[in-house]
């Protein structure tokens, strides 16, 4: 069953990839969407009928597809693993993916590369599902690289556009840097634990179980744990666009908007969080790594938020917003609230996919115009888009009772109340995070205001600029008014809007009268962090080997390792106070945004912010140019041309000379050759005979 969830999109991709050219648009869209629908239905079916009925501690379904590599004691299977964590992931991946597929059938209408687009998109679904359902690090890496590849293909989808190609390359290369971290982490895991599997194989427990069971006395292992955790985090920074590897994500907006929604907001970029959550047993062993994660997450969050404040491209705003929100998630992971991070992944998937699709709808309606300075007053042209985007906007801004409110609030509270970081760090990070929340509300409001409110500015400035798709939109009137998108596009918007509004209720925290189903559901597979300072002693020694149920208990970070109740000493009153604070921050941000930009939509922003702190330029001068110079002047002109080519050519010349002599042995007489073979045989037999008689 699990394998069909994964394979269904692959089958769709194969059909579209090989025969798509000859199929009509309708059929291609149908095949692509149907294949994802199959996997969505299966995913929901498996999740609700197979996984949920299992007892809480034993929620684990594995499926062995085939043994991929088996060398010595190294084993990597094509095997799938479904537990609460991957269950949640496949639900929103297939669900959101299906909506975006449907949306894209309308959005990509008339594009000459239609079948190519859907082939890539289906392939992406396959890879993403492989990633989250993988039962070992290597298969996860297959999905990891696969989604990177699909991301590359889709960012560079408009193959005639220079910037798309550049952005694709940038994304790929940046991701590769992160992948080195991932690979080294994988090697380290194997040498340390002797397995890379998330589940027990035979009598070898998974590395997560082994990590959870590490005794506090084995101090030497903590260096290794820190190294693994940090290297995994390096991988995550690449995939999830954290400082310093975030630069590719804003550029990735060169791809079609559904791609931005699916890959660069909802699914692929959250793979880093998934990895952290999946390997939480290792991560929580290293306070250092967690501190690094929290700091980098917080820094990324505020850094990207400030840049987002000054962007004028609607998708760039959203891209920086995504980076910022990803920073939040890592902050959550870093402060030990991994479930909160995953919760935010889910809610973020809803509202950010919604915002992206909404922006796509706007771009569509505006005939490929992406600059919000040239929009304004669109709400009367596209009421549905406006209404749905309102939901997304309010959700991300932290409007009470919407999805973003719950998840963000939880992260903020967990940051304040963290016990895994040294004293005072949590408070400091909370300030940054709260500031980010404020900024988020401001720039989102700015974007909404500039797009939908006020007077329309597109009349005077409308035209074709470099954002115009090369073929896209040819069948629309070039100078028509903005128009509402077709039903295939707004229906997914509406569904996502509903999800953005109510999606948060799966994880209402106890302090607000909920029971936080989400956290309790995830709890068994997420390792918990011991409070800082006493971490070395508080780590309970896992007794998994003795549990009679074997596999489930042996699985992942082990429920028994979790402290009985992290919120036992929660100050409910304080938590509510902080909820009020974050609500106020949200309203304040919306208020500021509305006040500033309703009055002056084209208010100039700081150059530094508009140019993204010149990060690209800094990278250009500090990394890329030195590299280029070294490569060109030293490696190419000296090492390659002189030394390597010298060797190669010299060897070739030497052999050419020797061959000139040796070729005379090639007489062409078969008997001659036979005689030579015989002489050789006599010599060899003689040698071995000599050895034997000696």
């Amino acid at each position, binding site marked *: 069953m699990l394998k069909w969830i994964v394979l269904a999109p692959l089958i769709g991709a194969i059909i579209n990839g090989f025969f798509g050219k000859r199929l009509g648009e309708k059929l291609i869209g149908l095949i692509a969407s149907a294949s994802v629908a199959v996997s969505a239905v299966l995913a929901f079916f498996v999740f609700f009928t197979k996984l949920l009925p299992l007892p809480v501690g034993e929620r684990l379904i594995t499926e062995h597809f085939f043994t991929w590599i088996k060398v010595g004691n190294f084993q990597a299977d094509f095997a799938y693993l479904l537990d609460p964590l991957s269950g949640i992931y496949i639900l929103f991946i297939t669900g959101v993916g299906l909506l975006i597929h449907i949306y894209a059938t309308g959005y990509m209408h008339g594009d000459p590369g239609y079948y190519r687009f859907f082939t890539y998109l289906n392939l992406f679904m396959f890879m993403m599902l492989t990633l989250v359902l993988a039962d070992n690090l290597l298969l996860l890496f297959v999905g990891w690289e696969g989604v990177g590849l699909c991301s590359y293909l889709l960012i560079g989808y408009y193959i005639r556009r220079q910037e798309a190609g550049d952005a694709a390359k940038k994304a790929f290369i940046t991701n590769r840097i992160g992948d080195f971290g991932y690979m080294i982490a994988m090697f380290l895991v194997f040498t340390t634990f002797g397995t890379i599997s998330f589940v027990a194989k035979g009598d070898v427990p998974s590395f997560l179980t082994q990590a959870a069971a590490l005794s506090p006395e084995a101090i030497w292992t903590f260096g290794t744990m820190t190294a693994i955790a940090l290297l995994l985090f390096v991988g995550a920074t690449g995939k999830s666009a954290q400082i310093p590897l975030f630069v590719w994500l804003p550029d990735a907006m060169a791809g079609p908007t559904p791609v931005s929604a699916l890959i660069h907001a909802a699914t692929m970029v959250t793979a880093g969080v998934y990895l952290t959550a999946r390997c939480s047993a290792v991560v929580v062993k290293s306070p250092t790594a967690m501190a690094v994660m929290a700091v980098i997450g917080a820094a990324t969050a505020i850094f990207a938020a400030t840049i987002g404040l000054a962007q004028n491209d609607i998708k760039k705003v959203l891209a920086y917003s995504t980076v910022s929100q990803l920073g939040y998630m890592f902050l959550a992971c870093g402060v030990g609230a991994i479930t909160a991070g995953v919760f935010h992944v889910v809610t973020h998937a809803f509202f950010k996919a919604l915002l992206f699709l909404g922006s796509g709808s706007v771009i569509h309606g505006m005939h490929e115009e992406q600059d919000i300075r040239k929009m304004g007053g669109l709400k009367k042209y596209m009421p549905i888009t406006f209404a749905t985007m309102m939901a997304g906007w309010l959700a991300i801004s932290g409007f009470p009772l919407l999805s973003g409110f719950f998840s963000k609030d939880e992260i903020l509270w967990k940051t304040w109340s963290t016990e895994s970081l040294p004293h005072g760090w949590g408070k400091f990070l909370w300030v940054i995070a709260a500031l980010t929340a404020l900024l988020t509300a401001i720039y989102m409001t700015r974007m909404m205001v500039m797009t939908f409110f006020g007077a329309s500015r597109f009349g005077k400035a409308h035209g074709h600029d470099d954002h115009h798709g090369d073929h896209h939109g040819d069948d629309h009137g070039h100078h028509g008014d903005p128009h509402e998108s077709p039903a295939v596009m707004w229906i997914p918007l509406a569904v996502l809007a509903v999800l953005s509004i109510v999606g948060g209720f799966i994880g209402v925290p106890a302090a607000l009268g909920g029971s936080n189903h989400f956290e309790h559901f995830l709890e068994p597979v997420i390792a918990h962090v011991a409070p800082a300072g006493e971490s070395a002693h508080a780590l309970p020694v896992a007794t998994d080997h003795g549990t009679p149920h074997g596999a489930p208990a042996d699985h992942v970070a082990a429920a028994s390792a979790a402290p009985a109740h992290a919120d036992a000493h929660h100050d409910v009153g304080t938590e509510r106070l902080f909820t009020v604070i974050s609500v106020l921050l949200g309203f304040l941000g919306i208020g500021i945004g509305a006040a500033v930009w309703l009055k002056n939509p084209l208010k100039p922003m700081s150059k530094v912010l508009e140019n993204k702190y010149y990060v690209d330029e800094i990278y250009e001068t500090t990394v890329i140019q030195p590299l280029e110079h070294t490569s060109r002047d030293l490696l190419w002109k000296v090492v390659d041309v002189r030394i390597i080519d010298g060797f190669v050519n010299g060897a070739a010349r030497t052999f050419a000379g020797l061959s000139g002599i040796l070729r005379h042995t090639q007489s062409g*007489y078969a*008997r*001659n050759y036979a*005689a030579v073979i*015989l*002489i050789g*045989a*006599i010599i060899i*037999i*003689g040698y*071995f*005979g000599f050895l*034997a*008689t000696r």
Partner: protein
Amino acid sequence: METIHLLFLAIAALAVVSAFNIILQRNPIYSAIGLIIVLCCLAGLFLTLYAQFIAAIQIIVYAGAIMVLFVFVIMLLNVREEESRTDRQKYLKFLAAPLFLALLAEVAVVIRFVNMPAPAIEDPNTAIDPSQSLGTVESIAHVMFTDFVLPFEATSVLILMAIVGAMYLARRDSGEGAERIEQALATDAAQPPVAVHEDSGH
């Protein structure tokens, strides 16, 4: 020295003499007959090794099919005597004898170390379960269709490819030699073929 040893020596001597006959005769048909005799001798030796099936197959396949093909080709090309063209590699003739002796000496040294007692085996002709005995059809089939199915099937593919290859290589096309073979194969015996040796001996 039992009877069986004498039998072995007789067969071996015949085989060796015939083998020399193969390489020393100038007329290929004598060589072919020499080889056929060697094959039959080996079939006899296989019988002394409990390999009855292999012995029968040896005669059927080697002597009955492969060598017939050789003889057939010799007759088809009608080569009577070795053509008296100049030997461009005379030195090989002088090289042959020392190499022969060297190889034999070496192998003799190696064989001197071989000493292996034969395990007792149920007589295949009276065996109650023939598949448990050595060399019966049943036991060969048992091995062939369990452990070696894949090589066996691969062999069949190989033979199929050989058939196709042979058909392609030997197909009739224009050319002087082809005409001659066509003539040789012609069904009309009223025009007997021109023997090759008559006009190509130069």
